[in-house]
């Protein structure tokens, strides 16, 4: 298109931009006229789900978003901010990059990491850890192996080069994710209370600067693309996926942290989705101010870019910085040290509007308020309908399934299921030890990161079992939070806050919206009980393709605080002779279990039952026992049930050849007992001499506490009379599964 002539804007063009008739009318009402082409582009990205949360905000507002430790509320800044004492705060957030990763997995995943890191360091926080949560289709398909391989390489490429350890995550495989892989990236940073910077623009006459990379045509309409289902039509409309440059971002990180120390920097925000359009309007809206931007001053890497393209570009590694007037040379000096671009592109005004000029010609003039969440963006209350499949699946009688003949084989089969198997093939590609804070590396219940200069540490994990949410959206939402909390508790930490990434299908489908609404309700209920407010996060809808839809997959990023380093606890067994204890009650529920899928090829039944108050008491007891110094190892029961949990506790001690002997008398089948995924159960080991102490703690919390066996030094795992197998065989199954699957060997 010629740079002078913009296309005629009409309803048809608006529709092509993903706007509906109602929104088209609303835009004209706001402006009092037909929008220009540039304005249409800006509205379409700012009102996309990705930026406006128009389909989800009504539900998200029901989540608990307050807490005494929260320094900023959800959505107020680029990321949530939690006080951890010692004058320090933790900034953390999770975000999806599903759609770009489906198209170009390496760059999609890499820029997902880059984006979430910018959210952290623009607040003045030094990023100290990354996590992720991934979903793919089965590895039996070459395309899915390609996606996993390249997503992992992309994450590694970005995080490793930035020098920020990737310390944890999770990955699951299911057919529903074949066309819709999920790539959720989380980052955590630390900032002194007095070093926090806001994403705000204010002060008439102050200077607007762009720092970092120059602007190209990459990712134009990325936010809009992320807000439709992937189809052949959308493939053709698809924007160029953004390309990440972690080296530039590393320089930008250091330069930004230097800038954040300066009083003359008023506010700073990264440019992710919707690029300059988003950062200019969100910062102005927050400061009740306006802006005049001269597009021709923006450093560009391509010829003849139009205002439309410049405003919507999602080129990576850029920031918008608001600087007190006359301090531009100081900012430039800092950026120049790091060999980065830095240009004055406009100024702050006291008008409510964002005015976009190019070479003296006005291209766009929109009130900031109307573009922003919490302002004039549309809010939709979507229809819901309870999905028909729910009753049928929940009521299926699983008690009639044949009992396995060879339990040893079943256990090995479970341990070699990619959903359970050792993930070192993945996490060894991530630098997880740089910055010398990683006290518990990937592979335990949660990762533990030291907070330098204090006696504290953070325990953190990501969790979200989509299968449970599919079978029971509300309880699945509760379980996602409960399990994440349990995982940090097993590491010795008190859960303090969560961030979430809500991955769902098309919100216009009432059955999908039912899943969404109920899952969010369940999460909220659990967060209230655990006192873990939601500090922010991200919603990703439209994870559907013509052939498949994903399981509804809310992913929880949990933050736990370890107040005393002596409480750091790992999951594997430590010493021969230790008593193996369980806190809680094994109920033998196999609905939605990995066992049911792997052995009986079924995804059905109801999600495991959960009593949140009971769960809270189990977690409290576990923490008290850890604090009393009597817990040698702790882990929960999750995928694969007690059988897999005990196996992993033996396998993961690589320094000793340990085994275990477990005997449990229960009126249930052994497959239910050992492979059921009962919630609210924590598996501990203690020295025999501490039995009474543990029992006292359990009874004070009114929870059952039972000795189920002992750790052995014979390298044999014995569970009742049904399992008797050398741990070395289990280890082989567990460790070799993923590398073999990635080599294309039959699963």
């Amino acid at each position: 298109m010629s740079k002078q002539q913009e296309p005629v804007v009409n309803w048809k063009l608006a529709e092509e931009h993903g706007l509906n008739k109602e929104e088209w009318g609303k835009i004209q009402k706001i402006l009092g006229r037909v929008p220009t082409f540039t304005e249409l582009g800006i509205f379409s990205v700012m009102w996309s789900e990705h930026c406006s949360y128009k389909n989800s905000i009504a539900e998200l507002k029901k989540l608990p978003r307050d807490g005494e430790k929260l320094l900023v509320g959800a959505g107020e800044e680029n990321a949530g901010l939690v006080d951890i004492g010692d004058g320090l705060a933790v900034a953390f957030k999770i975000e999806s990059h599903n759609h770009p990763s489906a198209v170009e997995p390496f760059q999609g995943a890499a820029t997902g990491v880059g984006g979430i890191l910018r959210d952290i360091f623009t607040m003045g926080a030094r990023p100290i850890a990354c996590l992720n949560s991934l979903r793919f289709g089965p590895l039996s398909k070459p395309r899915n192996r390609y996606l996993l391989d390249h997503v992992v390489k992309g994450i590694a490429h970005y995080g490793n080069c930035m020098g920020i350890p990737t310390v944890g995550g999770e990955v699951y495989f299911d057919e529903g994710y074949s066309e819709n892989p999920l790539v959720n990236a989380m980052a955590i940073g630390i900032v002194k209370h007095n070093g926090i910077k806001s994403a705000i623009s204010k002060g008439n006459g102050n200077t607007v600067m762009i720092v970092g990379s120059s602007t190209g045509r990459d990712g134009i309409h990325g936010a809009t693309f992320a807000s439709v289902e992937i189809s052949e039509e959308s493939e053709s409309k698809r924007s160029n996926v953004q390309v990440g440059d972690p080296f530039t971002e590393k320089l930008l990180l250091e330069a930004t942290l230097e800038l954040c120390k300066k009083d003359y920097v008023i506010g700073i925000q990264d440019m992710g989705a919707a690029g300059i359009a988003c950062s200019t309007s969100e910062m102005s809206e927050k400061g009740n101010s306006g802006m005049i931007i001269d597009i021709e001053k923006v450093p560009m890497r391509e010829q003849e870019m139009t205002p439309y393209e410049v405003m919507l570009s999602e080129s990576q590694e850029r920031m918008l910085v608001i600087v007190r007037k006359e301090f531009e040379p100081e900012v430039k000096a800092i950026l120049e040290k790091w060999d980065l671009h830095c240009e004055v592109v406009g100024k702050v005004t006291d008008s409510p509007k964002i005015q976009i000029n190019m070479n003296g010609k006005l291209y766009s003039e929109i009130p900031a308020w109307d573009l922003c969440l919490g302002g004039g963006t549309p809010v939709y209350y979507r229809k819901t309908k309870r999905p028909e499949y729910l009753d049928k699946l929940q009521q299926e009688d699983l008690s009639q399934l044949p009992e396995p003949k060879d339990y040893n084989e079943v256990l090995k089969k479970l341990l070699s299921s990619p959903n359970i198997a050792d993930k070192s093939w993945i996490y060894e590609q991530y630098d997880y030890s740089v910055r010398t804070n990683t006290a518990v590396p990937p592979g335990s219940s949660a990762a533990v990161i030291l907070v330098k200069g204090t006696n504290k540490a953070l325990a953190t994990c990501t969790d979200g079992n989509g299968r449970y949410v599919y079978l029971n959206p509300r309880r699945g939402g509760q379980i996602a939070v409960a399990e994440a909390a349990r995982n940090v508790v097993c590491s010795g930490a008190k859960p303090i806050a969560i961030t979430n990434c809500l991955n769902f299908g098309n919100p216009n489908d009432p059955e999908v919206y039912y899943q969404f609404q109920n899952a969010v309700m369940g999460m909220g209920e659990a967060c209230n009980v655990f006192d873990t407010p939601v500090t922010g996060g991200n919603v990703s809808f439209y994870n559907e393709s013509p052939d498949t839809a994903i399981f509804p997959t809310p992913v929880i990023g949990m933050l736990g605080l370890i107040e005393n380093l002596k409480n750091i606890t790992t999951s594997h067994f430590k010493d021969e002779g230790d008593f193996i204890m369980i806190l809680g009650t094994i109920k033998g529920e196999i609905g939605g279990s990995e066992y049911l899928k792997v052995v009986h090829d079924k995804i059905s039944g109801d999600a495991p039952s959960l009593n949140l108050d009971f769960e809270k008491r189990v977690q409290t007891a576990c923490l008290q026992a850890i604090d009393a110094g009597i817990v040698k190892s702790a882990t929960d029961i999750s995928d694969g049930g007690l059988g897999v949990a005990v196996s992993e506790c033996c396998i993961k001690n690589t320094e000793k050849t340990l085994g275990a002997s477990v005997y449990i008398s229960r009126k249930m089948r052994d497959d239910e007992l050992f492979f059921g995924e009962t919630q609210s159960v924590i598996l501990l080991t203690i020295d025999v001499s501490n039995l009474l102490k543990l029992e006292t703690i359990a009874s004070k919390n009114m929870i059952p506490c039972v000795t189920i066996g002992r750790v052995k030094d014979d390298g044999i795992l014995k569970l009742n009379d049904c399992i008797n197998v050398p741990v070395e065989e289990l280890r082989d199954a567990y460790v070799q599964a993923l590398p073999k699957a990635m080599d294309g060997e039959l699963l």
Partner: protein
Amino acid sequence: MKKVGVVVFPGSNCDYDVYNVIKKVLKLDAEYIWHKETALRHYDAIVLPGGFSFGDHLRAGAVARFSPVMQEVINFANIGKPVIGICNGFQVLLEANLLPGALITNKHLRFLCRDTFLKVKNNKTLFTSNYKENEIIKMPIAHYTGNYFANEDTYKQLLDTNSIVFQYSNTNGDISDDTNPNGSAHNIAGIINEKGNVLGMMPHPERACEAILGSDTGIGVFSSMLGV
């Protein structure tokens, strides 16, 4: 008090870890040296830390080698003062011809981060005198280009001059393909120059200086070098 200079190239990311070990663990003095600086004489030792200097553009270490600081690092080495290059720093030392051989992509063509065990082959160096001969120490590797390559002549020269300092092994000290994480020739993890004052190594001793991080046996490299 002994003072260590930690060079910071654009893209260095283990600079802080080394600095922290010198200051907080060894309680000696350390300073960052920006890659455009050239005054090094007042330092007792120089560390080229790990990371992705210049984004590994062109080839790991290839651009950093031309930073202004590097001519001074070469001069510093030539007058016999100690220089360590760790990971990306090792790559820079090879590019600067301060050490022989080359580093190529790991044999599995993937970035690899894991704990490794090293055998101290030569404890009679400036950097290993606090270790016993053949002592087994534990420290992590984290690299994509850490596969040490030396042709037969170079290897022979390394042997003749007793320049192989660390080799990848297991806890028993076995040196074999099974204990070789990245395909390095003869399991070589670290070498010194003939004069004995320049050490290059792929594993990260600075990440193994506190028991809470899984190992404190890396501290010997720094304590030997600084005579403490």
